[in-house]
């Protein structure tokens, strides 16, 4: 789950990491009031779930409260990579001397969180990783000990940071690793970790991703969930218990099991179609769930037809067929649906579909070809 910069900083603050004070504004007037309260030049930072805000103009400055209001007016409502800015973070402007990077990211290869440190901070770390990987110091976290303060300092020293950053940044990185574990993050990074003119070190920007699987034991973070405007359907699907990913094509796709759905996408593409989405209804779905999934996929205006591909283990074919039939009345009239049912209840399911006059495919390939053909005949 993505969270905003101001929320990430709130987590860091709780773990004793220095962050500059800051407040969130939803209107230019609020931004002005906050700037007045700080009584200092401020930065207005768009709070959106994407990187590259700065380049997109999502970070603006205001030396006076009035300028802060104007800056907020420019940023609020702005579109950044398809996301509308609804909130800005107002913080006093920092005089940064040097910028560094520290982060913790779950790594499947080492089966552990990996600590990453670079003296080349302030910019896209993936770019650094791609162009000069030697500038990034990595170390897997030993899950038995966590990251020890001495290990954190050693990494900063190995990255060539100055002595003062080794000392103060070491404490920050240690706390970041603790926060990563305690907050059930899958990513936690401070970029830039800023060395200030006065010799202090602080988190000038922060990004944290929370592991969705851990939300049941992180009730506070669960309340932080917000729809991502770029794909509101994905957010809604999650709330409905469906795994939905929006894609660019016109063939809606529903299946049971992630691998099977992915393979169905590939098969539709191979058959000349363009998948409109990925939707996994999981195991053991009942008719109601099937209906909900169909209506959900159909809400995407790009979708011209839907392919349902079910291999029944726990999921029963007749439940799937019933769900498809139930959905008929509420789907856009004339939208072609092709279903392919195998495994448990396939005979009963196919019979139900045939009785209802619905199309079905003998296998994944046949069904894919049928839906692509049906759409091109529209």
């Amino acid at each position, binding site marked *: 789950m993505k969270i905003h910069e101001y929320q990430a900083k709130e987590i860091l603050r709780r773990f004793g990491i220095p962050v500059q004070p800051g407040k969130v504004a939803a209107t230019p007037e609020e931004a002005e009031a906050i700037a007045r309260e700080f009584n200092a030049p401020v930065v207005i930072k768009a709070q959106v779930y994407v990187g590259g805000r700065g380049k997109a103009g999502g970070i603006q400055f205001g030396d006076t409260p009035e300028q802060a209001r104007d800056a907020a007016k420019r940023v609020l409502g702005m579109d950044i990579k398809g996301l509308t800015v609804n909130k800005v973070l107002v913080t006093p402007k920092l005089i940064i001397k040097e910028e560094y990077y520290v982060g913790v990211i779950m790594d*499947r290869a080492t089966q552990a*969180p990996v600590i990453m440190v670079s003296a080349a901070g302030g910019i896209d770390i993936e770019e650094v990783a791609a162009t000069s990987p030697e500038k990034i110091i990595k170390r897997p976290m030993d899950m038995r000990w966590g990251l020890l303060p001495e290990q954190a300092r050693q990494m900063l020293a190995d990255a060539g940071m100055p002595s003062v950053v080794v000392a103060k940044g070491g404490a920050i990185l240690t706390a970041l690793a603790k926060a990563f574990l305690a907050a059930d993050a899958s990513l936690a990074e401070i970029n830039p970790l800023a060395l200030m003119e006065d010799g202090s070190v602080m988190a000038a920007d922060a990004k944290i991703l929370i592991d969705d*699987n851990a939300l049941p034991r992180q009730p506070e973070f669960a309340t932080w969930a917000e729809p991502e405007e770029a794909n509101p359907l994905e957010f809604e699907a999650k709330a409905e218990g469906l795994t939905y990913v929006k894609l660019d094509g016109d063939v809606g796709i529903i299946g049971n*099991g*992630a691998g099977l759905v*992915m393979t169905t996408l590939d098969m539709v593409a191979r058959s000349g179609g363009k998948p409109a989405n*990925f939707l996994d209804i999981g195991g053991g779905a009942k008719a109601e769930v099937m209906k909900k999934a169909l209506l959900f996929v159909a809400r995407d205006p790009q979708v011209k037809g839907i392919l349902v591909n079910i291999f029944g*283990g726990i999921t029963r074919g007749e439940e799937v067929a019933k769900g498809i039939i139930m959905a008929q009345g509420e789907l856009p009239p004339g939208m072609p649906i092709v279903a392919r049912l*195998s495994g448990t209840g396939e005979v009963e399911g196919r019979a139900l579909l045939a009785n209802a006059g619905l199309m079905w495919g003998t296998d994944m390939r046949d069904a894919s070809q049928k839906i692509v053909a049906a759409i091109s005949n529209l």
Partner: protein
Amino acid sequence: MSILYHSSTKVLVTGMTGREGLFHTKNMIAANTNIVAGVTPGKGGQTIEGVPVFDTVREAVAKTAANAAVIFVPPLGAADSIMECAEAGVPLVVCITEGIPVNDMARAAAFLKEHPTTLIGPNCPGLATPGQGKMGIMPYHIFKEGDIGFISRSGTLTYEVVALLTAAGLGQSTCVGIGGDPIIGTTFKPCLEMFEKDPHTAAVVMCGEIGGSDEEDAAAYIPTMTKPVIAFVSGRTAPPGKRMGHAGAIISGNTGTAAGKVAALQAAGVPVAETIFEIPDMVKKALNR
């Protein structure tokens, strides 16, 4: 004629008294799996479906000599259950549970480095040895006894491909669903090693998918094998940065793409099927059948 699970394996089920656990325990028993014990703290002393239930794995092992475990414990307790099995000395653990927090799995993975337990999963359908039984949730009727080893990161795709193999007369030695999570116990390579050593396996089919580099690791090992391997990779049309259902099925930057995996496998001399429908013929060709 199998790896990991044999008819002599004595299986305990943790989380057996839950809805899922009970349903699949019945199915495993129906597949002639030797289910000797259930474990649910707080339900020790009961007998359910003829299976004695214990409060702890150690007690279950002591009383029934169980030497394998299937885990159906809910997500927040599943990693603890894995560690309990490891500490009780259970040599084989299959974790079905989906949705385990990844930090818990990182901890369990580190714990397993200090214990000689083989973990399959989590977030996997388990494994089946046709004719001998199964550990997990795979629909047992699709299998057929034979000499093809099968490994896959996903569940229903496994069933699709197995059904195709069975229909083509290609029975299976053991089918292993290794799971779709970012952190799993056993990856392709160790499964391939086991199949390579198994005298009853003639060839192996592996179904990979986008994300991670386990397929690439397997590709580096396969040239040392004496047995043919046929591969399939799903997710060719998946866009980068999107999680495709499986927590592990996500392309980060330029790594973990289907194209990269296919290329690595082909470079290792592995025939890669374009669609699952070609798999049976490619197996037959490799075995000159």
